[in-house]
């Protein structure tokens, strides 16, 4: 049997692929954070709670209205995104002119309230969301058994990541957006409704978190604390990639998935800290992050 660093080659490839799958998932979540921070300079600590809301929205749509996964994939992000719009319009907008730390505290408080409310309603044990029929089962790749649903997660995450990058960096709308956040007075003078753009951008970032939640619902237990652990990891990914860099968030997400996946093989005890270790090293060597534009 071929061995790679003391691990059978087949197992090694399997873990590499799994790392990539988790990485795609991290990329999707950190993308939302990076969009919100990069364009609005809001440190969105409610991102984990909004991800959880996405999963719960899908679960509740199925349980109460019988709405299936495919519809929920679109509907849940819209519902949760609309909730984000309300948050931006009535809470975040009031504090845009003061220090960013207030935005962080506000969204952190919101996250605690949302999570606490859901804990009270649903308990912490979580609920199961079935894998949609078309995506059940798996493929034997020879070196591993790949559940079809995991492959689906990667596909969706990569497509969405590319689309968002294209929208923001390459289209006229994205140009307005970037210009609006750079110099909003000037843009308003040109007749662009910047406050509306800002509100919609926040709603869009929240919708991305919710989309992550819907994708995660069939593979993890849908529970109120599902976002709180993930949030910190995803923040670390954004910091490593460079705060606000969209390409940075996507590529770092994929890389960190692989780093974490390999740690789970060679020294599983460290798997929950390895990303933070990388973060510390990156901050020491390159404080603006791997893809950051410098301070």
């Amino acid at each position, binding site marked *: 049997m071929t061995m790679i660093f003391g691990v059978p080659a087949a*197992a090694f490839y*399997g873990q590499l692929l*799994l790392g990539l799958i988790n990485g795609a998932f991290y990329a999707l979540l950190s993308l939302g954070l990076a969009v919100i921070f990069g364009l609005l300079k809001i440190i969105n600590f409610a991102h984990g709670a909004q991800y959880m809301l996405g999963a719960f929205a899908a679960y509740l749509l199925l349980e109460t209205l019988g709405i299936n996964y495919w519809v929920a994939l679109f509907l849940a992000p819209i519902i949760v995104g609309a909730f984000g719009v309300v948050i931006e319009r009535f809470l975040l907008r009031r504090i845009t002119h003061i220090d960013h730390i207030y935005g962080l505290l506000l969204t952190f408080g919101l996250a605690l309230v949302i999570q606490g409310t859901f804990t009270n309603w649903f308990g912490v044990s*979580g609920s*199961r969301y079935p894998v949609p029929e078309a995506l059940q089962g798996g493929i034997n790749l020879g070196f591993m058994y790949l559940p079809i649903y995991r492959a689906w997660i990667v596909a969706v995450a990569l497509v969405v990541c590319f689309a968002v990058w294209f929208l923001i960096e390459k289209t006229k709308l994205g140009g307005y957006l970037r210009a609006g956040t750079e110099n909003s007075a000037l843009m308003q003078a040109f007749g662009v409704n910047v406050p509306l753009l800002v509100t919609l951008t926040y709603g869009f970032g929240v919708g991305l978190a919710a989309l992550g939640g819907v994708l995660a619902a069939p593979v993890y*237990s849908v529970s109120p*604390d599902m976002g709180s652990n993930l949030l910190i990891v995803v923040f670390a990914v954004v910091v490593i990639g460079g705060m606000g860099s969209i390409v940075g968030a996507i590529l770092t997400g994929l890389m960190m998935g692989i780093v974490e996946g390999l740690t*789970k093989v060679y020294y599983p005890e460290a*798997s929950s800290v390895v990303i933070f270790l990388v973060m510390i090293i990156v901050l020491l060597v390159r404080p603006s992050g791997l893809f950051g534009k410098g301070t």
Partner: protein
Amino acid sequence: MKMMKTALATAIVSSLFMGVTAHADGHEISDNELRIGYLADMSGTYRDLAGPNGEEALKMAIEDFGGKVKGKNITVMSADDRNSPDVASSTVREWIESDKVDMIQGLVASSVSIASTKVMNGTDTMGLVNGSAASSITNEHCTPNHIHWTYDTYPLANGTASAVVAEGGKSWFMVTADYAFGHALESDVTRVVESNGGEIVGGVRHPLSTDDFSSYMLQAQSSGADVVGLANAGGDTVNSIITAGEFGLAQAGQTVAALLLFLTDVHALGAETAQGIQLTTGWYWDKDKDARAWADRFYDRTGARPSMVHAGIYSSTMHYLKGVEATGSDKASDVRAWMADNEINDMFAKGGYVREDGRMVHDMYLAEVKTPAESENEWDLYKIVRTIPGDEAFRPLSQSKCSLVK
């Protein structure tokens, strides 16, 4: 103001009388009131298996007892330990010193129980440990102030692991939570598997509260072991089982053995995902007529079926209150002596007894999760495969490291 004065005068006069009667036989209910503190995880990972519904079980016991003991009122206060031994020990210290709490109930995370009972040791306050798993609580960490009621890691390993090995699961791959409880359970399992002729072929230790178990399940799969043993708890176990299903471990002929699984976890998984899993439990709501009758009353109040921890809280509170009533004292040493002298026969246990190390010995049950076809409703989840007699289930006193065992 006048009312205050009257109340104060009444208190002084009654305490004088109290003093007279109490000193006559040396026993009394201190502060003219029995105070019970409920300390548990009210908001985190272990909320559902104990948490607010555990407090409800405690209140049910007090109501069923009549609301008073020796004519004195019973009051309950509760706190969230946040699964932190530091929070727990400072709460317990405050309860003992300022609030004069006589008994502390709940006690869920093993680390919380060990820290809390250390504070109680040497005081007059009694601890009833119900949520915790670590068998060390009545072994090296035993104190004369507490009793461990519902279950511990010793019978979990004994029941499930020996049953699985007997069915031909000789080689094991362990997925262990990397902290005290997981290590304890893993070593208990290793002992049982090896003494029954099986072997541990590999394992991973994962951090507490891991979201993604796919890497570990893939490692378990490529190890080729007959059995994947889960020495973790709560959300970690639930996610492990979901991922094992997703990666088709069962189809490939591997058995998943969850060593600690609560009814609330199985309910979260549902019969579809959890079917066929074997587990060891201290109690099941549908195990007999008494259990069912109590579980029905619990359901009416909470909308959920009780876990073994909820039942243990009710049962131990009841036995404690009987002890206070019988001895006329709320001193830990008096009540514990009474509790050890009297057998437990209730909805929780038949012929249960408290040993000198503080272990309440009672029958444990090896259960199997029903298939969706067998399960008649969302809480109809277990069939009892075997009753493990108490003396066989728990660690024998001859192996005890507890200083109270002579």
